[in-house]
């Protein structure tokens, strides 16, 4: 099949970006969106042009590396599917696809289709864990967890941290991502001791990163490749509200967002 890929090309954050059209004559409907970009990149490299930078690793929809907008939809038209698993047979012969990176002020631009999602790591640093050092654990079966609870925790824990929810949200909110971790740990008995503090700190960090507020539009869950349900946001709000009251005497500190790629300097 034939397709046209219209792709955002921008060398670095300082450079001026533009859309470039690449007609593709020989697209095999079985190939994935990323394999289609591979084919384009091979031909660009052969012509001595610089290939399109895009992020990817597992190509199985689980690492969360890949992701860009396809004609305005994060991860493209197929529900519950990352771009690495999206096969070209879902497009029409002759179609034009517009590829551009996630746009969010909290995901600084890097190159072409690549952005910086370290804000997500910092939200996890702010409390997305159970504080149990190695060696401290009781026997696995000493903490019974009902099957339904375990399943619900797993539903929320399935988030791959891709950032599509932020890119799709008109407010640029990271509530689905943050709520997913707060729900995963908040549902389980292991997560109870730190439940208040976790919610308060993670939400504070989310705001410190500049993500917008959630107004219950629901675009996020619509594009989420793991179909994380909106109820995780309700849960986040619930835990935040109770937590903020109970932790009202605690000082909440946030982590300063990193703005460059110089590491390790203090």
């Amino acid at each position, binding site marked *: 099949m034939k397709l046209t890929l219209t792709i955002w090309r921008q060398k670095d954050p300082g450079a001026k970006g533009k859309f470039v059209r690449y007609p593709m004559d020989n697209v*095999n409907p*079985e*190939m994935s969106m*990323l*394999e289609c970009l591979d*084919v384009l990149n*091979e031909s*660009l*490299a*052969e012509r*001595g*042009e*610089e*290939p399109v*930078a895009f*992020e*990817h*690793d*597992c*190509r*199985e*929809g*689980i*690492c*969360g590396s890949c992701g860009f907008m396809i004609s305005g939809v994060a991860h493209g038209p197929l529900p519950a599917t990352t771009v690495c*698993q999206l*096969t070209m047979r879902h497009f029409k012969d002759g179609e034009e696809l517009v590829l551009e990176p996630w746009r969010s002020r909290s995901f600084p631009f890097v*190159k072409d289709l*690549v952005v910086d*999602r*370290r804000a*997500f*790591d910092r939200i996890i*640093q702010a409390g997305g*864990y159970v504080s*149990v*050092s*190695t*060696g401290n*654990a*009781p026997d*696995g*079966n000493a*903490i*019974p967890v*009902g*099957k339904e609870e*375990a399943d619900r*925790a*797993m539903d929320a*824990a*399935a988030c*791959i*941290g891709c950032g599509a929810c932020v890119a799709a949200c008109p407010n640029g909110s990271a509530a689905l991502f943050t709520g997913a971790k707060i729900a995963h740990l908040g549902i*389980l008995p*292991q997560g109870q001791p730190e439940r208040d503090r976790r919610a308060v700190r993670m939400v504070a960090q989310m705001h410190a990163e500049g993500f917008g507020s959630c107004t219950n539009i629901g675009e996020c869950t619509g594009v989420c490749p793991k179909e994380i349900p909106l109820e995780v946001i309700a849960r986040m709000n619930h835990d935040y509200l109770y937590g903020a009251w109970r932790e009202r005497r605690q000082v909440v500190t946030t982590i300063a967002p990193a703005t460059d*790629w*110089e*590491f*390790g300097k203090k």
Partner: protein
Amino acid sequence: MKLDAGIPSGPIEQAWDKARFEMKLVNPANKRRHNLIVVGTGLAGGSAAATLGELGYNVRCFCFQDSPRRAHSIAAQGGINAAKNYPNDGDSIYRLFYDTVKGGDFRAREANVYRLAQNSVNIIDQCVAQGVPFAREYGGSLENRSFGGAQVSRTFYARGQTGQQLLLGAYQALERQVDAGQVTMFPRSEMLDLIVVDGKARGIVVRNLVTGKLSVHIADAVILATGGYGNVYYLSTNAKGSNATAIWRAYKRGALFANPCFTQIHPTCIPVSGDYQSKLTLMSESLRNDGRIWVPKQKGDKRPPNQIPEGERDYYLERRYPSFGNLVPRDVASRNAKAVCDEGRGVGETGLGVYLDFSEAMQRLGEETIRERYGNLFDMYQRITDENPYKVPMRIYPAIHYTMGGLWVDYQLQSTIPGLFVLGEANFSDHGANRLGASALMQGLSDGYFVIPYTVGNYLASTKLGKVSETGAEAQAVLTSVQQGVERLLAIPGRRTVDSFHRELGKIVWDDCGMSRTAPGLKDAIGRIRALREEFWQNVNVPGSSNDLNQSLEKAGRVADFLELGELMCMDALERNESCGGHFREEYQTPDGEAQRDDEHFSYVAAWGYTGPGNPPELSREPLEFHYVHPSQRSYK
């Protein structure tokens, strides 16, 4: 070189306790004075960095992805083994140890495997405490399943996403240490060389993948947990970025590389569909619990599967291995699939595929049960192939999946360079010539949570370390050589893309150093790899520059290393005149076509040492001794 694994004397059950007792300890107040480097944030590196941070060391941790959470471990589906014996079905530490040594076809070190089985129990406890949402019974206890041919149910799992959940557990523990200031994380950073000073590993040279800047990092010990080298085959189930660069460059600085030819081919992957194909997708082995594998009895039978009557189907695994049937180990299942396809009985357009059929299981258990057990895998299959596995049997074919070989390490997980420790898939240690399903996750976490925290402390407490500076001559020399390597790649005025070299290399090793190997084929492959490597350095085209995000440059460096490693794999395979586990030399098979080991001559670990550019590598042998599990011909009949 004489290799001493340093295995504690005395009964194997007490070896690890004894070793731990004999180890020197670092005074708690001194820990923060020690700087450690951990390269890799998969299960092995992530768990190591987190635990060392908890203990109070100053840790710098590196990965090439944009976040430590994306390491390739995330993709593991099936599960993790542990000798908990919760189902009360006869499991024990000893049985897990026994199964692993036997499954590895008697090419693993007994003491290491025993420790692995012991630690397996603590891993589950630790992960549960972190909030890993393992599958549960209605009563709230942990659920187990049987996996990869084990006759007991000892596999713990979290849907089809066990690796993801275990990795997120380690990642969260790591981020907690980042928050605490114990670990500094360097994402999008690729280690390109090792710094050895006075014979000890003292640092690394790293390229910042966004700015292209090279930097030197000095430490008291370096821990590599950089994963396996399956991508030497180009098409594999590994993530696209998985590579051998870190361990290969350590090899060139003096670390021995053990058993490079021990690679594992996984029997249940989605077959190749075209030459644009960039990777192969694994279908979890758990499918073999309920799916039946077959091909038509007739050669070239092109009828759709449901029109082939029962009597004209060959359930070849059930026929040849009545007691294990579809659950024979991976190497046996893979080889048999290749054999029936070579006979012309393969299915699908390319003829390189066999059926994995659930119709009988669905009749017996109902479609709902099958959906509950494998729903997400079926969906994934359908998404990729556009076929509905509830209606037509899946088509599967073997693919490269795991590499048992890796840097040689002793019982302390230390390589032949003092101060260089190697964990997870990057080392060679525990799986011998074939790894059992659900054992890699176990090994990575055992190494990272429960072994390295002791052994690195022992090293630090018992070694006198001189002062090394980032600007010192040794470090700067390595930095300069890395700089020159990068510039050299960019300067080649070639025409062929990096991927085209990689694909060609992959085909050579797959054809001649893959599922079955022969001496003439291996010799031929060595010649072709050398020629290809020569062409690479004349004719590769690496676009872009060195001072920004340049994915072609990243790939070029990795492929350059694969072009050298591929040759070493073939040399190792050629040297090992026997068949064992995943290494099947056609010349050495039993009359009924099974792998024929030669314990008299080959009961050793082959460890190769670098001797300079253009020189043949030097082989050292670590003899293997079996005091507990006596080598026998594996039989799954």
